[in-house]
């Protein structure tokens, strides 16, 4: 079934089963690498994208439920040449080891900064608590979000 989908400002038409999780459409049809498969269970946050600005676990969110909502992925924030302030801050703090969780950290932080431009460290930690990091990069991730909030 053909489904229209607005991702990072562009409308795409994809032909997939309506119950297909958004993650596989983003990765395999639209060749967007940012969102990652981590658990398929809404437990880790590696697959986080924004739907109309709301952090959403794309590993279980079905394509048929996206409807008119705008999908934003980490590719929609910026690029290596033109990074978003959050991406700049993550590079500045070297806030990654393996980096597999970082997509989810940045997308969740984006939604936080959109509604709360100057969060406290406790706000950042509470917002990112559902996103798991295994390498132990937690402190740098928090510092990067605060750095972005403070204008880099």
């Amino acid at each position: 079934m053909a489904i229209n989908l607005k991702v990072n400002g562009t409308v795409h038409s994809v032909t997939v089963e309506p119950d297909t999780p958004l993650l596989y459409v983003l990765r395999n049809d639209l060749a967007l690498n940012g969102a990652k498969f981590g658990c398929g269970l809404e437990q880790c946050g590696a697959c986080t994208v924004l739907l109309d600005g709301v952090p959403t676990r794309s590993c279980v969110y079905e394509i048929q439920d996206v409807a008119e909502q705008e999908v934003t992925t980490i590719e929609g924030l910026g690029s290596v040449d033109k990074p978003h302030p959050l991406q700049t801050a993550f590079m500045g703090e070297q806030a990654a080891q393996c980096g597999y969780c970082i997509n989810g950290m940045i997308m969740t932080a984006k939604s936080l900064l959109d509604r709360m431009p100057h969060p406290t460290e406790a706000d950042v930690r509470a917002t990112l608590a559902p996103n798991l990091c295994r390498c132990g990069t937690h402190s740098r991730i928090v510092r990067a979000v605060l750095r972005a909030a403070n204008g880099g």
Partner: protein
Amino acid sequence: MNIQNLSRRGFTAALGGIVLSFSLVPRLALGQQANLPGSLNNNRMLDAWLRIGPDGSATVFTGKVELGQGIVTALAQIAAEELDLPLTRIKMISGDTGQTPNEGQTAGSQSIEASGTALRMAAAEVRAMLIDLAARRFGVAADTLQVGDGVFTAADGRRVTYGELAGETDLHREATAKIAPKPPAEHKIVGQPIPRRDIPAKVTGGAAYVQDLRLPGMLHGRVVRPPRYGAKLESFDEAAVKALPGVVAVVRDGSFLGVIAAREEQAIKARDALKRSARWSGGEELPDPAKIHEHLLTLSMEDKVISDKQAPLPDGATRVEATYHRPYTAHASIGPSCSVAQAENGKITVWTHTQGVFPLRATMAKALDMQPSAIRCIHVEGSGCYGHNAADDVALDAALLARAAAGKPVRVQLMRDDEFMWEPFGPAMVMRAGAALKNGRIVDWTYDVWSNTHNMRPGAPDGVNLLAAWHLEKPKQPAPPRAAPQPAGAGDRNAIPLYDLPRQRITSHLIVEMPLRVSALRTLGAYANVFAIESFMDELAAAAGADPVEFRLAHLKDPRAKAVIEAVAKAADWKGGQGTGTSGRGIAFAKYKTLATYVAVIVDLELDRASGKIKVPRAYAAADAGLIINPDGLTNQIEGGIVQSTSWTLHEEVRFDRKGILSQSWDSYPILTMQEAPKTSTVLINRPDEHSLGSGEASQGPTVAAIANAFTAATSRRIRELPLHPERVKAALA
């Protein structure tokens, strides 16, 4: 970051031009090759490591691979430094059986020492050859040439680039290792916090992982693992699964079962259908988890005394004894393991996030009954592995499926439960320590550690350590478990304390039977042994009525060990354990593997006595890794290790019952969250005149013991069994 520079010598000779020195390595008997430093010894040709292109750039080949630890950036720094090239002109190629040296596994915090040393020596030699060529071209003395940015300039202004000289020299020659690398005082790139090469793609959605590989015509595969160890596949509904949308092939070989589909979600649905219809028989019963440590001690074992130091035992000494336990723990990578394989014309190419492309290739060849030369393993980064997770297993899965895909590449990613239930765990262990004290000093020390092997990786000479190989119709057998020699050791890693003790007897017991699948998890046995030894040191300090810092310093001779303890005590403003009933501080120390980085850690602990929940809000570390290559990378490793160890220590144990593994998701294997992660600060002690030491696993041991010691400081109770989860804490307080 706080870096102290401590130079062993007060000066470093400033030398211009090339420095020739004579190798101190003695020639062995006639006909034998001289030992070369680091991985040069097994990969002796210069062009195995370095090639200079006509454009003046250098391509560097390393057998070590990026695991998120920043090694590729650090190795690029070393090569750029010795070649006098900017980092932008260093191209790195790592972990490819078709291109790079064989450096075994990227493991054990050895990459800087093995690959870094080889590259430093090879690059210094190549640079010297280029200088020599330039000097001859200009007819001038080598030491009159200026070099910078890949260009030699003569005193009269004539210039020649590395690229122009590259065609005049043949690097396909054996390294001599006789050219001294730059003295550290001249370093401009080594020692700098150079940003990692891999991070920009990782924060912008670039192609950074094997999971992101997207080859033309690529299909998607999934596997169906047995429900428990040893179960046999009896039947499944093949016709129904083949009829599902997108299914290309169902592959069964004995009890190995997998499916290939056009789309990823189709492969997942087909896997679910296969799983529902599959009938399995038999399987192994697991031990009672409540008595796992007692059970392990009943199994067959090989005992070895690894240290035996004799001295008269004085009369009237006070004896102290304690036994400690660690549980099985999981690597629990955030991204389930993934591989892409393509089988064409009797050859297989595998893109893999293995830690060792050559050992994997050798073992895959046995599993697939192929020649190693018909298999090419190419490393592409994956989610962090922290040791031997399922990365190697999924490479064989992908190859088995690719053989049924008519030449098309097949991408296989494990599902979350596959990764948890079938990964090789870090072994459960028992540590028993005993000591005698007199006049506040340890006069006798005994220590026993019981553990399974920590190395069931691919690459063993006799056996096939890959999961699917054991499930085939004609199954392959795993290699027998082996003890690893000291000083690095395995289960007994860090079992010999660095303390200077007059009398000690340390025994390593290798438990041969493995009721749960086990292999290498970051630090191997060091996490458990440092937990036991450093907990016990605090118990002894308490028995001696001494401050834990003073007690440790009194038993140490190594000045570098003392220096990290003193540095962390100063950074944390140590004034003892400062227990209040709900808060306290603890310290611990280790030199990783007794031959790598020195780390001392102090943690602040907070306790909610009602819930039994422990929090570690703050951790301080001091580390001495010899000559620092990249201080920011080193700090990231030390601090990451502290946080990961805090997670292991407070939360982690693999849950199982008699029927199988129960830890199958993050619900049943919780890890530390963002709100629980300690804030960390690290003092780095740089020693430019000392060899660089491995640091990737150095802080985990000190962290666990510092937490256990802080708990005791807070509560006057001692917990000797990990993890320190709320039920155990409440039991200790009762």
